[in-house]
Structure formats: structure tokens, C-alpha cells
């Protein structure tokens, strides 16, 4: 176990060093990412200029939901790149080689590549999160700081798990993987706004089937000190992020089923 963790960080180091060889291109892409997501927030700001509020939520409150989910989504993209491009390995048959090595497939794929360029989006999310927490004048007690970090970590787990599911699907089909974008990008975009603005079936979907509400909506309510308009008790937000970790464990189980099902292309 300890050896695996060491190996993982070694992979991380190699990947980072490799990408830093093209420094100018690297910095350009980070700026590009930052710019693109920043512009997206300008669009949200414009809507608040027109409408004032959304179901009683102000721009700054929405910004807290937005910043938090962007940080975890972007970090998960940094870490899950190997799984995101996994369909290519199935297609080319390269996955066979990983099966021969005396390490778990999860470790090898997760360590294959780190998408450092996504740090542009991490930065954007972090800036908006900090801005929102200053304007909202949040009283940062130790337990709230722990809850924020806990939620970000749990959010990474959920998005990572979704990418693992996408990779698992590619054992059966490598076309139509675009549908998974509705859960990853779609889930992130949905969480840009508090969940209670959506219709019931949609809220239920992102609570009970894809449990993003547990790592964003519920804990953020606790942190910004607002009661849930939907009436859930406030203690829920303190423990709900745990669901994110459970979700990741479940997706790894499903992944293992997929690996057992794998038949090589033979090429």
C-alpha cells in the first residue's frame, strides 16, 4: 500500500516534469483555461445584472456554490486524465500490458497522465470561492474550514468516479462516450447554481443517482449559514460529503467487473 502511494507520487513527478519541458505552451494553456472559465462567470454576472437574484439567491451566494464545484471538478480532471483517455487504450490493445504488471490497474491508469493544464480552472474556481467568502463575511471556524476541504475532496471523488465509470463503459463500447459528459460537465454546470432552483425530477437525479448534492449543495448551505429552502435538516451538510467517498469505492468495484469482462482487441 505504502509502496503504491510512493509510486503514485513518482508518476506525478514524472508527468509534471514532462509537461514543464514545453513551458511556454504549458503557461499558454493555463491562461487559456483561466480565461475561458472566467468569461463563463461573466455570463452569470450579466444575468444577475438583469434579474437581480435567482429564487432568492444573490450573485455572491451562487458564486460560492460555483467556486467550490469548479475547484473539485477541475482537480478531478487533473487527476483522472488517464481514465478519461482510457478508451484509446482499449482500442489499441495497450491495456494488455498493464494487466501483466504486478500493480493494480487503477494505480497504473491514474498515474499514466496528469492533466496539469486544468490548473487554470482550479485557479479560477479558487479565486471566485475566496471572493465569495470575503463578501459573504463567513466566520471561518476550524470546523467550517475542515468541512470545506472535506467537501472539495469528496467532490473530487465523485467526478473521478464518474470518469472511472466512463472508462469502464469503454470495455463494452467506445462510441457514444460523449453521453457521460452530461454527468461530468453537466453535473458541474448544474452545481453552479443551488439545487433548489431546478425541477424535482432533476434535483432527485443529482441527489440520489449522481450524488453531487451531497458534496456541494448541502455542505455549502451549512458554510454560508442558510437554511435549506427544501427543508432538509442542517446537520446533513456536516456529514453528507462522506457519500462522495462511498461513490468512488462503488465505481472502483464496477471498474473491477469491467476489467474481468475485458477481451483484448489482439492488436
Amino acid at each position, binding site marked *: 500500500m505504502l509502496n503504491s502511494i510512493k509510486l503514485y507520487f513518482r508518476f506525478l513527478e514524472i508527468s509534471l516534469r514532462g509537461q514543464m519541458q514545453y513551458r*511556454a*505552451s504549458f503557461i*499558454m*494553456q493555463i*491562461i*487559456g*483555461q483561466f*480565461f*475561458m472559465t472566467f*468569461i*463563463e462567470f*461573466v*455570463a452569470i454576472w*450579466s*444575468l444577475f*445584472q*438583469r*434579474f*437581480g*437574484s*435567482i*429564487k*432568492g439567491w444573490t450573485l455572491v451566494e451562487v458564486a460560492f456554490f460555483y467556486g467550490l464545484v469548479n475547484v473539485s471538478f477541475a482537480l478531478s480532471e487533473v487527476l483522472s486524465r488517464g481514465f478519461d483517455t482510457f478508451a484509446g487504450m482499449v482500442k489499441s490493445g495497450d491495456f494488455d500490458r498493464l494487466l501483466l504488471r504486478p500493480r493494480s490497474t487503477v494505480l497504473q491508469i491514474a498515474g499514466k497522465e496528469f492533466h496539469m493544464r486544468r490548473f487554470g480552472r482550479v485557479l479560477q474556481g479558487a479565486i471566485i470561492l475566496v471572493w465569495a467568502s470575503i463578501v459573504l463575511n463567513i466566520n471561518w471556524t476550524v470546523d467550517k474550514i475542515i468541512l470545506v476541504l472535506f467537501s472539495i475532496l469528496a467532490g473530487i471523488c465523485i467526478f473521478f468516479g464518474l470518469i472511472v465509470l466512463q472508462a469502464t463503459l469503454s470495455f463494452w*463500447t467506445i*462510441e*457514444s*462516450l*460523449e*453521453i457521460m*459528459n*452530461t454527468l461530468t460537465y*453537466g453535473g458541474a*454546470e*448544474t452545481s453552479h*447554481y443551488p439545487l433548489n*432552483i*431546478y*425541477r424535482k425530477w*432533476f434535483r432527485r437525479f443529482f441527489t440520489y443517482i449522481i450524488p453531487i448534492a451531497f458534496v456541494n449543495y448541502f455542505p455549502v448551505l451549512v458554510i454560508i449559514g442558510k437554511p435549506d429552502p427544501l427543508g432538509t435538516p442542517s446537520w446533513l451538510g456536516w456529514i453528507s460529503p462522506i457519500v462522495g467517498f462511498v461513490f468512488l469505492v462503488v465505481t472502483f468495484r464496477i471498474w473491477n467487473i469491467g476489467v474481468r469482462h475485458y477481451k483484448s482487441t489482439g492488436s
Partner: protein
Amino acid sequence: MIAYWTVISARYRMLLQYRAAAIAGVVTQLFWGFLRVMIFDAFYRSSTITQPMSFENVITYVWLGQALLALIPLRPDYEIRNMILKGNVAYELIRPLNLYWLWFSRELANRTAPTTLRSIPIFILSMLFFDLQPPTSLLSAFGFIISIILAIFLSSSISIIVNISLMWTISGEGVSQILPAIVWIFSGIIIPLPLFPDCVQPILNFLPFRGIMDTPFRLYMGHIPPDQLLNVVGHQLIWIVILIAFGRWILNRGLKRLVIQGG
């Protein structure tokens, strides 16, 4: 001329083969449409101020955007990128065709083929079930069709600039990130352009990007009345000419400094 037409139709038919991907694309687009409509619904319920566009129009705008999303250039043409990286672009230069128009023909097919596959099912489904309104009049339908054809040319003339910029390996990376982001927001796909603050409206009206989505959509719903047709279509045409001239100019500059590795 026949040669270019052959390039367009061959590439078009090749891209039409990606049907499973198109079905996935339709499902994805329907999801985004739902999400956007719900968010706008919540905003419109939260304010009693009269907005520059009615909620019914916004719904139509959102669904038209989802149906015609593939008109927006999001990624550079990876085949051209590989040609430049590997030096195969030399073969493109030997052909007895003008390189700009050759690549432009590819772009026309790249834009229209996925749009053909995805737009029809989304059009039908959203008109039957999700409140996409029909065009307000025969004249506005006519204006929409004219303007969409120009939108294809406009979009191609922008995306070809992204492809050409890849000849500058480092700065090209930045251009291929930032230009699509600018098109993404200033075309109206994220939020309808009339909902941006009044002070930026003159800028939005000046820029070419509204010609890809906003102009045709507003003609469709009569938000731009048909008697304005010549004005807005003229705006699209002028920008197409400017962008093609610019694209040809940077292509020539790129070719002058292009070094092809032998081997």
C-alpha cells in the same frame, strides 16, 4: 471549383458515418437544453422587470442553439494539426489547389456534417415536446435560412484561422484555446446576447460572432424584424469577407516561415 466541391462532399459523406456519436450528441444536447431552460425559468420567475427578450423567446433561442451547436468551432481540425506537426503539410502544398480554399472546403464540411446529423432530431423533439416555437412568419423563416447559410461560412472563416494559427506552434496553442472561448460566449450560446448589459450591446453588435447564432435565431423568432434582414445579413457578409482576407494573409505569412523537416 469542381475540385473544391468534391473535397466538401467527400469529407461531408465521411463525417456522416459517425452516427452513434451523433446519437450520443443528441442526448447530450437535450440535457444541456433542459438545464439552460430551467435556469432561465428560475431567473424569469425571480424578477418582474420587463426583459429585452421574453421567456418564450429565450426557450426558442436555447433550443435553436442546442440544435445548431455544431456550427460553433470548438476544436481545431486535428488532421490539419497533425499534418503541420509531422510535416505532411508538404503534400497539401504540392496539390494544384489553393491551400486556403482547400482547407476552407474541409471546414465547410466539418461544420455542416455534424450539424445535419444532430439538428434534425433536436429540432423535431424540441418542437413537439419542449416548446420550441415555429418561425413567426414565412418571411422570418426565409431570413433564418439565408442567415444560417451565411453563419456556416462565417464560422468556417473563423475556425480556419484557428487551424492556420497552429503553424506557430506555441502561440497557436493559445489561439486555439482562446478564440473558441470568445466565439462560445459572444455568439449567444451561453446566454442570449440581448440579456447582456446594455452598455456592452454596441460591442456585441459590432463583433462578427453574433452572426453565427444570435442573428439567425433572432430572425427566426422575429426578434429582429424581417425588414432589418438586409442590415444584419450585410453585417455577416462584410465580416466573412474581412475574415477570409485575414485568413489568407496569415496563411501566406505562415507558409513563408514554415520549415518542413525532411525524413
